[in-house]
């Protein structure tokens, strides 16, 4: 069958034309890192402007463009593709498959992303600037008051959705169809489980987002009145459609992170994961509940009381399966032979900080209290605890955990631990004070603020610069590892790690599991 069994092609064509899940995974990971830096740069501009009260550096319009693009780039460009990259690399290795189920489509899913984000970022230089209605782009800010850049943004969302749907269909087909003999569903590593459920969520809600932006497009250019009361529509309709996508979306972001942590904590506790079955059921419950809680993002919009109550109780229910997960992670560590390598540090950091984010989520779920918290910095603090300390910390842990397997070289542990501690301190310094200013009434997405918020905002900005700078250390560590890290050749890089990915040579060869492996029942996860 030609030359594809020998190894990667040479030069640029290897990356452009590849059908190899490891190549595509690598491209996703590097692309998402670039977007992480870009979105991070936008965040630094925001924090620089907010360093002191008063207008310092940028115009208010530009500030709004920064908050909008920061959110969009981080959600759609950094976090989501990073986990898709991880899925590409790890799912075939974890289930004993030779590749993803549909390899050519896999490459297309990736290559849609870079030009789309180029187009999205280029709106910054267009007349009227980039979209400035926030990453949630509520109507009528995004319709009646839309500039030309919003049209490009809408089409970007369409093709990003296309990419996500194709990527997810690929993951579903891979997991359902490509497992090695004996790898039953309840023996799959939890990362594979969380991704299967995430992929289902993506296929279900990305088309709804496509519907939302299509209605926007029609309202802007073709005179429809979906989001205009004058024609019998309703701006709030936009919020309903958007959040029907948007709430499952936040679980799309966090569920693979749960999966990663569920791989790493057992490895460094040298114990099997506590309560594997309940982890699977908890993940499925969270996914189900995510479809019936969306309006908790819009308590203050003027819903009937019955709606407020329904969405409040449904939202609180999510705390139950999430609590199961946190309990299981802690129980996995209980009386384990713990060591604290960098992946474990980031996982424990995840566990502590995500739990804080979960609790503030519970506070926000209470409709009457939310009237006070709504659109304040308290919300900003809450979702950065789950997005950054949740998703990004777990992604960081994943990179340290699997990097030796990917490139056959060990990263610098001291530098890794330093990265963790600087990140941990920087992150908390940034976002913990935002709880206080939010509760005291500082609104989000405003470039200026009242004087009493000055001290906490300065702390936040200093923390953000520290957190941002520490990612440069991470980048340096990754590159130094790939170029000149200490070589390792044992398949099992971490002595406590379990799973098929640790049975293949290190670094993982270009093609693995061309014939399916035997699943040893002793290594079953349940």
């Amino acid at each position, binding site marked *: 069958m030609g030359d*594809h069994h020998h190894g990667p092609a040479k030069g640029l*064509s290897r990356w452009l*034309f590849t*059908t190899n899940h490891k190549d595509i995974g690598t491209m996703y990971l590097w692309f998402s890192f670039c977007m992480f830096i870009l979105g991070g740069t936008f965040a630094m501009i925001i924090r620089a402007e907010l360093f002191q009260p008063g207008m310092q550096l940028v115009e208010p319009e530009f500030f709004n463009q920064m908050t909008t693009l920061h959110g969009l780039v981080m959600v759609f460009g950094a976090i989501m593709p990073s986990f898709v990259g991880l899925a590409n690399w790890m799912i075939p290795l974890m289930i004993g*498959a*030779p*590749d993803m189920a549909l*390899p*050519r489509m896999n490459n*297309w899913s990736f290559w*849609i992303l870079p*030009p789309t984000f180029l*187009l999205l970022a280029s709106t910054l230089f267009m007349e009227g600037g980039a979209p400035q209605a926030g990453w949630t782009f509520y109507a*009528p800010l995004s319709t009646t008051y839309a500039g*030309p850049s919003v049209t490009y943004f809408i089409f970007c969302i*369409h*093709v990003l959705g296309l990419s996500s*749907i194709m990527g*997810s*269909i*690929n993951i*579903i*087909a891979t997991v*359902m*169809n*490509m497992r*090695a003999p004996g790898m*039953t569903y309840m023996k799959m590593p939890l990362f594979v489980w969380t991704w299967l459920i995430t992929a289902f969520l993506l*296929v*279900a*809600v990305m*088309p*709804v987002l496509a*519907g*939302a932006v*299509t*209605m926007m*497009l*029609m309202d*802007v*250019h*073709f005179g*429809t*009145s*979906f989001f*205009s*009361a*004058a*024609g*019998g*529509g*309703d701006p*709030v*309709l936009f919020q*309903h*459609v958007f959040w*029907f996508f948007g709430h499952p979306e936040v679980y799309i972001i966090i569920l693979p992170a749960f999966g990663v942590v569920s791989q790493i904590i057992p490895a460094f506790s040298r114990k099997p994961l506590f309560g594997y079955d309940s982890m699977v059921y908890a993940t499925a419950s969270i996914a189900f509940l995510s479809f019936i809680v969306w309006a908790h993002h819009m308590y203050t919009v*003027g819903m*009937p009381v019955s709606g407020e109550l329904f969405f409040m109780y449904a939202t609180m229910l999510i705390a139950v399966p999430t609590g199961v997960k946190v309990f299981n992670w802690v129980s996995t560590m209980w009386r384990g032979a713990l060591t604290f390598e960098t992946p474990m540090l980031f996982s424990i950091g995840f566990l502590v900080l995500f739990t804080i984010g979960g609790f503030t989520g519970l506070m926000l779920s209470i409709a009457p209290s939310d009237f006070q918290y709504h659109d304040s910095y308290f919300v900003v603090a809450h979702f950065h605890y789950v997005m950054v300390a949740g998703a990004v910390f777990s992604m960081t842990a994943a990179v340290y955990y699997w990097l030796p397997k990917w490139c056959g070289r060990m990263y610098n542990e001291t530098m890794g631990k330093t990265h963790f501690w600087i990140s941990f301190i920087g992150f908390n310094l940034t976002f913990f004070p935002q709880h206080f200013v939010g509760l005291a009434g500082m609104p989000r997405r405003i470039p200026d603020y009242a004087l009493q918020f000055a001290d906490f905002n300065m702390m936040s900005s200093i923390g953000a610069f520290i957190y941002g700078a520490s990612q440069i250390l991470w980048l340096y560590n990754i590159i130094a590892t790939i170029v000149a890290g200490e070589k390792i050749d044992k398949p099992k890089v971490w002595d406590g790690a379990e799973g098929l990915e640790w049975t293949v040579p290190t670094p993982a060869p270009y093609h693995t599991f061309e*014939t399916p492996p035997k699943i040893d029942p002793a290594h079953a996860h349940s």
Partner: protein
Amino acid sequence: MTSQTSTEYEKYYVPEKSRLAVCATIGLILSIYGAASIMNDMTFGDPGEATSSWTIFWVGMFFFMATLFAWFRTAIRENIAGMNSAQLKKSYVLGMFWFIFSEVMFFFAFFGALFYVRNLVGPWLAGEGEGGRMNDLLWPGFEYVWPMMQTPQEAVGGASAQLMANNGAFVSPNTSLSFADAAVWWHWLPMWNTLVLLTSSLTCHIAHMGILAGDRKKFNLWLTITVVLGIIFLCLQYMEYHEAYVEYGLTLNAGIYGSTFFMLTGFHGFHVFMGMTMLLIQLLRSVIGKQFTATDHFGFEASSWYWHFVDVVWVFLFLFVYIL
């Protein structure tokens, strides 16, 4: 999914490196850049100014379509050459199933919007319930009926009378497309549309039984009928749109009734066009290429699933857009 025979796990075919993905991306990005630019020219541009938006759009579309053609041709040739294992074929089945599921969710968004508007927004605008407080302030005199034959804007005297929450003139239709007069039921186009589409689903199924029995003549005949019925549906739909625009004043600008009507039926019509094209290609493959056997005809089967899917969507449309 648990059948794990050894033949399923024969050496898996990982395709050679391929230019398809990159070419498809180039076509797609040019198309969307062109399409967005066309719309911006239309809404924000200077009408006299010449732009290259249409050129970019068509170049992109041409490139995209050519790539898709090459892509499917490659997939078909691989299958004919016997390169596809049973396992890969199952992956294609799963892929098609979940693709159709994503399409269902796309329509779900528009149906959701329709239900929300009809059951909640309309009554609220007319002053009912907790959402009704704005009626006095913004839309006094607006009464809600569905189909909405008078927009809130018209109720208060037009676009100039109410400047808040206002982004254009919404002129409601003089006649709705709902079922009006039982005496002249045969004049009612949507009913004919329904008959045509339901019949086409049946003929598509008969074609499927034909190929399962290895009867190519039967397959070709009934598939041709299906495609013709699809074309008839699209023609009827065109007539209906023409009637709506010219005679009934039902346009995209006609308020939420027109918005939901055209978006739901329009996207459905577009899907009928895609399904019809898919079936037509399968027909040509059978007639010209003598492809498909009783056991190997997934290209047709996938297209037929898609066809039944657009049929089911139409049933819901007929119910919620025209009848109820």
